[in-house]
């Protein structure tokens, strides 16, 4: 008795899995019938055009079963029909389809019917009187044998068969589960090496792209440090050197040189701040993208309407780039456009972050004009994003930027 009690949870689990398998088996049966139809039609020619879609449906159903069994899913079906039909994975899926739509279906059906029968039969003594005397022929299996049972003894015998049925479940269900899941576990798992190499290739490619974006970002930072900040500091050193030499020779000129040196120092500081802000604006960490952009819009030189619809967070470098783009664009609006108002719209569509910055100014923005537009483009492209600028003379100007979210 104790052993039975110990095995009860396992039996419940087995029944649940059998019923789950019944679901995919029904799907498999549908696809099997459809595949047969397509195959027959292909013999006379017209079915060939349906093969790719049929194979995609097959892959979808197989992936459902893979998800249920925790088996690694392969990449998409090969595009060309010929290659797809020769594909090892597709062939194994077809074999699985035939087995699961037949044996798997039967196992699943037994898995569903046995518990129901058990429930019905064990409780039969409590409700057999309620049945109409003549028309007592419900549709569950095994029923017909007992259709003429009308007295308590007969009802108890029926209840006994229910108990027997329960014992059968405890003993048989795990075996049935193994039978039902065998084709999926063996035929849907990646055949040695083939599918994993595809996955590895895909992951390697995306990883390489991420590293490329990272390298481009680092190059950009290196450049702004070397060509901006360092040049400012060298200029300071040069001017200080000149001032020192002038002290003895031409004391009157020293003041002017020192003024320039001080200017250069301030410029160096401003550029250093800009570089640091470009790496990761502190406000992003504190207030998130929405808060950071609100701050930008609020400090813009012209009235700026801001619409942000970005649920969740993107990768830090993407948010930093989005912030940088909006900051640069708005600074252009304030400095060059002569606009009366600006609009910034940021939203997320799938795995893309879409930015639109528009103003009603005089237009004619040019990337070669040194207005920071080339910097924006460089940075967006480092993230594999896209920038489109529409700025006819006379305005209005609209800049649209699309960035992969990276999350």
């Amino acid at each position, binding site marked *: 008795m104790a052993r039975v009690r110990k095995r009860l949870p396992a039996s419940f689990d087995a029944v649940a899995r059998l019923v789950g398998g019944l679901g995919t088996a029904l799907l498999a049966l549908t696809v099997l019938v459809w595949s047969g139809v397509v195959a027959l039609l292909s013999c006379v020619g017209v079915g060939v055009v349906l093969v790719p879609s049929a194979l995609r449906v097959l892959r979808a159903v197989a992936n459902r079963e893979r998800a249920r069994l925790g088996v690694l899913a392969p990449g998409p079906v090969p595009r060309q029909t010929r290659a797809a039909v020769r594909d090892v994975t597709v062939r194994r899926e077809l074999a699985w389809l035939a087995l699961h739509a037949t044996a798997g279906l039967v196992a699943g059906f037994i898995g569903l019917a046995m518990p129901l029968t058990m429930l019905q039969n064990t409780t039969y003594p409590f409700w057999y009187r309620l049945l109409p005397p003549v028309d007592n022929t419900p549709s569950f299996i095994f029923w017909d044998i007992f259709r003429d049972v009308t007295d308590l003894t007969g009802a108890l015998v029926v209840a006994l068969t229910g108990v027997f049925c329960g014992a059968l479940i405890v003993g048989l269900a795990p075996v049935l589960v193994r039978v039902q899941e065998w084709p999926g576990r063996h035929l849907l798992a990646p055949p040695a090496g083939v599918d994993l190499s595809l996955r590895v290739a895909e992951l390697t490619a995306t990883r390489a792209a991420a590293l490329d974006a990272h390298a481009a970002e680092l190059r950009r930072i290196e450049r702004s440090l070397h060509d901006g900040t360092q*040049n400012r500091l*060298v*200029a300071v*050193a*040069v001017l200080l050197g000149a001032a020192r030499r002038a002290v003895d020779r031409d004391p009157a000129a020293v003041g002017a040189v020192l003024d320039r040196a001080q200017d250069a120092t301030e410029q160096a500081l401003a550029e250093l701040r800009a570089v640091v802000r470009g790496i990761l604006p502190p406000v992003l960490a504190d207030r998130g993208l929405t808060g950071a952009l609100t701050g930008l819009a609020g400090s813009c030189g012209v009235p700026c309407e801001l619409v942000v619809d970005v649920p969740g967070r993107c990768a830090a470098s993407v948010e930093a780039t989005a912030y940088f783009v909006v900051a640069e664009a708005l600074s252009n609006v304030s400095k060059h456009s002569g606009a009366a108002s600006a609009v910034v719209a940021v939203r997320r569509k799938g795995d893309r972050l879409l930015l639109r910055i528009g103003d009603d100014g005089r237009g004619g923005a040019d990337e070669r004009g040194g207005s920071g537009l080339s910097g924006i483009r460089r940075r967006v492209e480092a993230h594999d994003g896209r920038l489109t600028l529409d700025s006819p003379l006379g305005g209005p100007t609209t800049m649209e930027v699309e960035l992969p979210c990276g999350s």
Partner: protein
Amino acid sequence: MRIVIAEDDPLLREGLALLLRAESLDVVSTTDTPESFLAAVAEHDPDVAIVDVRMPPTHTNEGIVAAVEARRCRPGLAVLVLSAYVEQAFATELLAAGADRLGYLLKERVGRVEEFLTALHRVAGGGTAVDPEVVGQLLARNPHTSALGRLSPRERDVLALMAEGLGNAAIAERLFITEGGVHKHIRSIFAKLDLAPDDRADRRVTAVLRYLKGAGPN
């Protein structure tokens, strides 16, 4: 001395011109791209060109390419290249065709006006100026070379200054020893490294640099 400056950063360009003009040197033209630099060299025929390594359009080695090109067109032109950081490849590219009338310095050396002017005059006078940083890196890269190991510490100091392009008198002044002493050290160094002794500074620099780059005495 007539000078052309090629530097794309406006502030630094103006600063350099201001510094040199205050020293009564004749800055005949300041340019900000490789093309305008080559045009200015052709037009003004200067004695010295001061060139930044990183210039438009790609901000990588345009300055080196322009300097090499300018020297090809005007073989007597002295060139002092300024670099934001030490890049062995740049120095090698620049010094490949001989070290006379060539200088390769880190930008910040300009702030030490006296040393910078000395280097500038040395280059204009047919000599060589290699940044101590470059020499230091080359020396650091070959510490295990047995021949270098045989040098005494003092000889290593002399070797480093020699590689920078300094003459015997300047080396003597830096190390607070007599010229005769320097001469003795140099003879000993050349003997230990199997280099042919030579008193002309540029040949000496070429030989030493080639040795330090690992090409050996040949």
